[in-house]
Structures are given as structure tokens and as C-alpha cells.
């Protein structure tokens, strides 16, 4: 919970977004 609260103050990381490394960004069906 502390971790989540802290993330609210952090910027989004472009690298994570473009590489599809979170549940928001991962592409549909995985092989």
C-alpha cells in the first residue's frame, strides 16, 4: 500500500510503456 501511494507522486516511465511490461500495455494474446 505504501508502494502504491508513493507511485502516485512518480512520473510514468516511457520505456515501460513502449516495451509492454505492465498489464496496461501488454499486447493481447501471448504465444
Amino acid at each position, binding site marked *: 500500500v505504501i*508502494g502504491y*501511494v508513493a507511485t502516485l507522486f512518480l512520473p510514468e*516511465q516511457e520505456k515501460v510503456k513502449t516495451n509492454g*511490461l*505492465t498489464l496496461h500495455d501488454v499486447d493481447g*494474446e501471448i*504465444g
Partner: protein
Amino acid sequence: LIEGTAMPLSLGMWDWVMIAGYIGGILVMGYWFSRREEKTSEHFLLGGRRMPWLAVGISFMMSLFSTYSLVMAPGEIFNHGVSLFVLNVVAYPFMLMIGFSLFVKFYFKLQSFTPFEYLEKRYDRSVRVLVSLIYLWTRLLYLGMVLYTTALVFKGGVGWSPWLTIPVVGVIAIVYTVMGGLKAVIWTDVIQFLILIVGMSAAVILCARMVDGGVPGILQYAFEHGRGPSLYTQREFYRIDPYMRLTFWFLLLGPVMESFFYTSADQISIQRLLSTSSYRNARRAIVTNAVMVIPFTLVLWMIGFSIFSYYGQNPDPRVTAGDTALFTFISTQLPTPLPGIFFAAMLAAAMSTLDSGMNSLAAVYVKEFYVPVFNKSATEANQLAFSRWATVIVGLVFMALGLVIAVSAEALRQSVVEAVTIFSALLVVMVPTYLLGVTTRRATSGLIWRLSFLSWGLNFGAIHWYTASRTGLHGPIPSIAVVQPLAVAVARCCRWAMRSASRSGGPCRMSPAGGLSVFSGRASSDCWPFL
């Protein structure tokens, strides 16, 4: 059992034939898979990513089930009742499925060997090194403890000394794991599962024939005598009270954290899932495990209920506690070769945990440390040869740890188990690291390092308080001890996060050297607000 009060099993010739047949059978399987093996580390460590999902699902369950579970569950039911396990069997399969859908797709996407590869891509190398080192350390300790408890069970159950049990179990598991790799581990797990089911069911069926009313009679007698889930109807059970033996909320936390650990950071279970040919087959394997764990647990409970009802109706002065009752029943009531099958089942439970541990920790060592650090230009042949050597080395370390714990436990008693608990406390970092990693784009390496130190501090504080409470300090947790450091930590974390956000270069990033510099005392106060 630990006190050695159980009546050791007396084994006849046919019992020994069953045991020898079992050991010979799994060694032949190991040899057979070594001949069919193709020569890459992917085949040795991941079964060529072509393992059938049904076998993987069974192996997943067997890896996490040890001899200790076989003795502990019936013992707990005999002594206190089934309440400890009820919530687990309801919540665990669901939480396992949720954990699977949260984490495992990323490992397939990256075609990983270990779950730690994700961390380097998601955060940076320092987090990968942090988490894989903690994993290696805590799993080595855990498997040393598995060998030690196995030795205790065999000492009480069949009168074997730890100096016999640990080398015998360890060497046999090393031999077939080194020969056949993950393929041998998974297929021997399937055979060991069948032996375990036969051994457990035989004990239940024969016991049911000796108790009035059969299986319904057993359940009726046990529930009438307080061995059912009666705690769930009491109001106190839903309070948050650290001094109560069992409470609902602590029991609920168990399956949640356990299943998230198995599906995020645990190499033993993730390696199995990655050995299937696709994400869809891995999902089938995890469903197999989630579905099969229920009847398997019910049979285990039935052993507890059966033994309790049998000795309730036929009192025996030798039976004083649940752990010993099972062995007294097997040794005095079951005809040969059933004690032999049960003995083989105990060996199976021990070896199915050890073989998986050896293969998986070898994978962690080769893929996380040997190739990236010591031999960057390692060829496939080098990696395969080193995987085999790593398996032997890991196996020998387990055996040494098991023997050290066995020897020191006799001299130091309970404190060894407590020491292992304290050293395992580092594990608290793992699930939050993965959970934050997959659910938010904002979590960074710096945040994970800070959270790690915060959670270690809280965890060691809790263990210290628990130890103190056992030595006479009995009262509420002094809130100032928890609230004040927590408030300071949260305030510093927020301040750091806001400063990072306002900086154009983004949040503070840990380089491998920076990440580890805390140990040499060179940490910069900008990156390490807690220090």
C-alpha cells in the same frame, strides 16, 4: 514425532521390495531421459519447452508438497482440528489463478528462463540481482529445512538417523536430476504423485473399515469431537489479535501471499510453467494444479480424521500426539507391503521437492550469475555442462545445510528454526516488487530499493517483538515502535517521489554499482533517503 516418541515402522521383506522397486524405478527413469536428452541448456532446464501441461500441473503440486506436509496436516487435525486449512483450500486455487493472470504472461512474452529476467527489463539490473540473490539464499535455506524435517520424520517414523536419511534421499535425487534434467524431474514427480495417492488412499480405506460407520462414521465422530471447522462460527476468530493461535485475517493472508509468490518470483513453479509449449498450455497446467489440489488436500484431511476417530474409539497408550499417531497406526495396523508403499510415498514427497529445488536453483545460478557475470561468452555446451555441475553443487549444499541444521538443532533446539525464520524474512521484498512492476508504469528501481529497506525494517521489528513476547513481554505492540518509523518512511518516500517527478531526468535510477553501494556505506543521501 520430533521428540522421538513414535513407534518406528517395522518393515518386512515385501516392504523393502516395494521401496527398492520405487528407488530403482526413478533411477531408471532418470537414465532413460538422459539418453533421449538433446544437448542444450533449454532442454536440461526447461524440457525443451515441450512438456505436456497435465504432467506440469501435477509436478507443480508435488514440488510444493513435502514430507513435512504429509505429517503436519494429519497431525494438526488430530491435535486441533481442520480450521487451519479450510480457508487455504478455498482461497488458494482462486488466488493462484489471479496470480497467474497477473504475472506469467510477461515471462512467456520475454521467453525467459527465470522470472528475474523480467525485473531487469522492467526496472534495472540492480533489482534483478537483489531479488535473485534473496531468492537463491532463502530457497537454499528452505530446502535445507525440508531435508532436515524429512530426516526428523524418518527418525521418528522408521528409526533412521539423519546421517542416513539425508545422504540417501539427497544422493538419489541428485543422480536422477543430473541425468535427466527437468524432464526427469517432471515425470518422476508424476510417478511420485501416483505412489503418494495410493499410499494415502490405502491408509484411509483400511482405517475406514476399522471405524464404526465407515467414512461417514469417521467424519461424524471427528466433527462431534471438535475436529471440524468449528472456529469459523466463533466471533473471536474474526478479530485481529496477534495472541490468538488462528484468526481469519492472518489465515487469509497466507494463501494470497503464497499463491502470488508461486506465480511471480518462485523459480521452482515458474520454470515448470515455462516448460510448456505456450501460455495457453501453462494456463491449463495451473488449472490442473488448482483443481487437483482440492481432492488431494481432502484425502490428506481424511487421514487426520480417520486416525483421530480410530484412536478415539480404540485408545492406545502409545498414541499421545497427532504426529506420532499416523506412524503407530501404519506400523501396527496395516498389512505388509502397505507400510512399504507408505514409506516409498514419504520418500517420494521428499524427493519431488528436492529434485525441483536442485534443478531450479541450478537454473538461477547458471542464468542469473554464471552466464551474465562469470562467463559471458559461454556456449550452449558450456551452459549444459555447467547446469549439471550446478545441480550437483546445489544438491550437496542442501545436504550439508540439512546436516548442519540437524546437528545444531539437537544442541540448540528451537533457536535454529527461529534463525531460519529470521534469515527468510528478506523474502518480504519479492511479491511487492512484481506486483508494483506489472500494475503501474510509475514504479521505479529507486522505489523498490526504498520499499525493500522499509519492509525489512518492519519485518525484523515484528520478529523481534514476537521473540520478546515469547520471553515474557506480553502486551499490545507498542504503537510508537511501528507508527513513528512508518510515518517518517512514508514522508521521506513522498518527498523523494515529488522531487523525482519535478526533475526532468525522471526519478533516481540505481546503477548496479549504485544499487549495491549501500553495503559499502557509499550511498548518496539523495538516492537513499532512509539512510
